[in-house]
């Protein structure tokens, strides 16, 4: 059962990392236009290079 000593902290750290990442996405307005983003990915305009 000593493996729990590693696994539990690891699961908590991973979970916290996920949460922090989510907080980052909210702060950078990544949920403002879900509909448009879903369509933009099919757009060929910026396939070769990113938007200037």
């Amino acid at each position, binding site marked *: 059962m000593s493996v729990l000593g590693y696994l539990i902290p690891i*699961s908590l750290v991973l979970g916290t990392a996920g*949460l922090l990442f989510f907080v980052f996405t*909210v702060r950078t307005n990544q949920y403002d236009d879900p509909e448009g983003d879903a*369509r933009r990915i099919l757009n060929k305009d910026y396939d070769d290079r990113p938007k200037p």
Partner: protein
Amino acid sequence: MSVEAANFRPAISACPACIAAPSAEDMAARALPKEARIALSVPGAHCGACISTLERGLAQVPGVTDARVNLTLKRALISAAPHVTADSLIAAARGLGYEAYELDAGTLMATQQDKAGRDLLMRLAVAGFASMNVMLLSVSVWSGAEGATRDLFHWISAAIAFPTIAFSGQPFFANALKAWQTKRLNMDVPIVMAILLALATSLSETIQSGHHAYFDAALTLVFFLLAGRYLDYRTRAIARSAAQELAALEVPRAVRVTDGAEATVSVSELRVGDMILVRPGGRMPVDGEIVAGTSEIDRSLLTGESRPVFAAPGQMVSAGEVNLTGPLTLRASAVGQDTSLHRIADLVAIAESGRSRYTSLADMAARLYAPMVHIFAAVAFAGWYYATGDARLSLNIASAVLIITCPCALALAVPAVTTAASGRLFKRGLLIKDATALERLAQVDTVVFDKTGTLTAGVPEVGDLTHLGTRDLSLALALSRASAHPLSMALRQALTARGVTPAAVTDIHEVPGYGTEGTWAGRRVRLGRAQWVGADATAATAAWLSVAGEPPVEITFTDRLRPGAAEAVTALKASGRTVILMSGDSTGAVAAMADRLGITQWLAEALPGDKAARIAALQAQGKRVLMVGDGLNDTAALAAAHVSISPASALDAARVASDIVLLGTDLSPIAEAIHTAEMATRRIKQNFMLAKMYNLVAVPLAVAGLCSPLIAALAMSSSSIIVSLNALRLR
């Protein structure tokens, strides 16, 4: 600022422009930031190709540095050099085939930094993270962890659960406290009781190294409830912000004339006695008396009359009327809140207070539900304590009952459906402003339409031309080309489309308020009002063509139907609803329109009060009335009706009074909206049934003491997910 600037300068000046020029500069510097951010509403955008077309097209407008389309909100945000105006961008969007309206960027920025929404989302995310982690530990316990391992898991769960609930549960705690203080029971009271009791019993079980802890249940509960609340908030916030932005559509500016110098000022700066210049195409900003100029004015937004009215010095005009042909100078007699525009808007407030408070399905459910939950839990506790005398066991069972009955599915039942339905309607160009509008819309059995501006586009269309010879047609075209009057423009369009060539009329000039005049083959020719050409006016909207020495010829006009108007009326009638036409316009025009659309019941020359009274009478007969209207004369009726819709082109008073705003010009989504609303109401009721069934199965289990944390978690999650999926079927 321009007022101060004018005050500091000497009143007597050799050159009036010297006064105007610096203040005009001031104005420009103040109104334009370093880089203009312009927001446009683009109701027609719906696909990936629309994004590329619009972004590329708008970026080609000189001065535009960046254009980004938001498809979810059907909006385009443009960064551009200060000299770029919204009008040029709107023209560009029109050129690409999209309707566009300017939105007030100031209001927009305010709604973008939506603190409350982010706050809820953060709490939701934390609750989600915590419940997943605790669930992981709980699964190990359920699959057989024993002794010290189980205790350790329970302690870790407790360490996660307490801070999480302290943070994520705050909205519920705040609401429950408010309800407690006002001695009223709302949905949040049983929620908070369940959460707190679950935490307390779980903690005491953990301390005594017991078998069951409900930390995971308390957390998933908070997670699902927050999800429901967030959906609810989002639907409302989007509708509210969009409605506010629409309200800012009309940028209120007026041209004030001081000692011969013109200055553009904000309407709020106007005072009684000011001289105001209203150019052709402009809207009267104040009530006043005409002191110079002749023209025709369009009063349709105030009265519903489709025919332009002659205007000359000495005549009174009201705010909201549109000047058509010649420049007019007014002396303001009432400004701001005192204008007739605002007085009619006050009618709305009166009508609204008369509208019976509608109890939404969710409120009704909550009112029944909250006391039931408490009674069940209390009975379970009392029963078990009486039977066994074991307080710890009884308390555990009571908390299990509270958790099981906690209205997870119920909290999701309505918001999930309204979110799906509003999303679906938004895609069709309808904006739901009021939370209960969908439920009310589903009950509608009578639909009342306004005519001018609602069923018609407010643009005249040339009627029969067969009685005009080729010579008259080419004369009419030549004369109509000299004027920007709506009737002239319609005539010009129709004649050009027929391939008529203009006659060689010389010396053409417009006589504002009357018509256009010219010389053809040595004879005077005129196109204009009946009296001016020496004819007797008839009931129809008409322009008259006269050639000196011959009797004048009448050219009649009808109002052009809005796209989708015929379809909407047909679909509504096909669904068994009564359609009524009510207008302030003349009997002839209304009867013709009713006949054209196949509407059998109509009311003409209705005053604003008449419309509202008629609707009130219909509702007194037990009818549920949907009012569709745009004018100021409709606002009282819009507020009095069970539910109301107004187009985006309506005056802001009308939009404020209505529950739903139609973003595009097409009317056909109205019939579909009622259908969607019916489906949504059916889904809400189904969801309530599902939640009830779940309780019927789970509550006896909990009361019997058979409900382990595993069963609680399964029951709660599955019911919430089923309810959400049922709502998603609506998309």
